[in-house]
């Protein structure tokens, strides 16, 4: 650490100077720890990005859900029309049933996707808030430590 390199050795015969030097080193360490704020800021930005991506994925999922609903309606109508047409539309009825089956599978997938997004939102928010709250408590602890070292140095002066 830079704080260690810039300090010269104290006179071993002078305990007060030694203590002063130690306090100076600790102060340097504490000041460098305040750089943690940059790491917290970086994490916050990353988490904000994740949350924005979650929102975009939720919007996409709503669109997908709407398409699936439409597909279900189309397949139902196709089955009804096939039934009306009777024997001549047997092949068409098979296709309509297949489309309905695909729509059901897509709907189940869309539902799972929606559930996954909600779980993702909760986990991301909980992590984001934990980092934010823990960042605040750590910065407060470092400031408290800095203040205590300041008091110690002024007592030594």
């Amino acid at each position: 650490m830079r704080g260690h390199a810039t300090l010269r050795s104290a006179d071993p015969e002078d305990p007060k100077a030694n203590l002063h030097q130690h306090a100076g080193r600790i102060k340097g360490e504490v000041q460098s720890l305040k750089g943690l704020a940059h790491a917290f800021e970086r994490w916050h930005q990353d988490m904000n990005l994740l949350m924005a991506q979650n929102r975009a994925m939720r919007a996409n999922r709503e669109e997908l859900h709407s398409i699936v609903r439409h597909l279900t309606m189309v397949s139902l109508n196709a089955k009804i029309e096939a039934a009306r047409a009777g024997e001549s539309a047997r092949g068409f009825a098979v296709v309509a049933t297949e489309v309905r089956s695909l729509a059901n599978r897509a709907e189940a997938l869309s539902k799972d996707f929606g559930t996954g997004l909600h779980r993702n939102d909760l986990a991301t928010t909980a992590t984001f808030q934990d980092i934010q709250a823990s960042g605040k408590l750590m910065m407060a602890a470092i400031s408290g430590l800095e203040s205590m070292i300041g008091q110690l140095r002024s007592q030594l002066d």
Partner: protein
Amino acid sequence: MISKQARSSIDYLFTEAARSSLVLHPDDACSIEPVVKEAGIAASLPGTVLVITCSSFIFRFLTLLRLGDNSETRAYYAQGASAEENSADALFEAANLCTGAINRGLSRHFPHVGMSTPYALSDACLSHLQDLQPQDVLSYQITIRDSVRLRASVCLCSYAPIDFTVNRTSASDAAATGELEFFE
């Protein structure tokens, strides 16, 4: 991992904080009832839920607040303004004050406690609280002036044994006279 008296203390801190911050006028009658079973709450109060976290090295407590879906509740928090977002803003502020009071209460027993800013989530997320592996979830029905309704939950996640008892007089003083917690 969370002792019985610690759970009771968190329950006390929350109810005092809710009375001091979610009730906008001192004369408004307020009842806070514990809800034993969480099932069905999301269906009865659709919409968004506000989340704020208090963290220490050994725990995190998430406070979750939902406004009742009725006009009286929205009007109460909009405080006369007609815009829908006013009630949401007011609830954000009230939630922030509420969790700030809990945070101050906790900081008397834990030297290092910090608090996040609030965030709004879909209430569908509540079905997945168990993903966070909480030791306990305390849930409440809050009724103000008979018609203003909120639901609240405090999700308790601990990573070491937690045992403390709040001084009930000083904790309520802290809730009532605490400093404002500002958004960042």
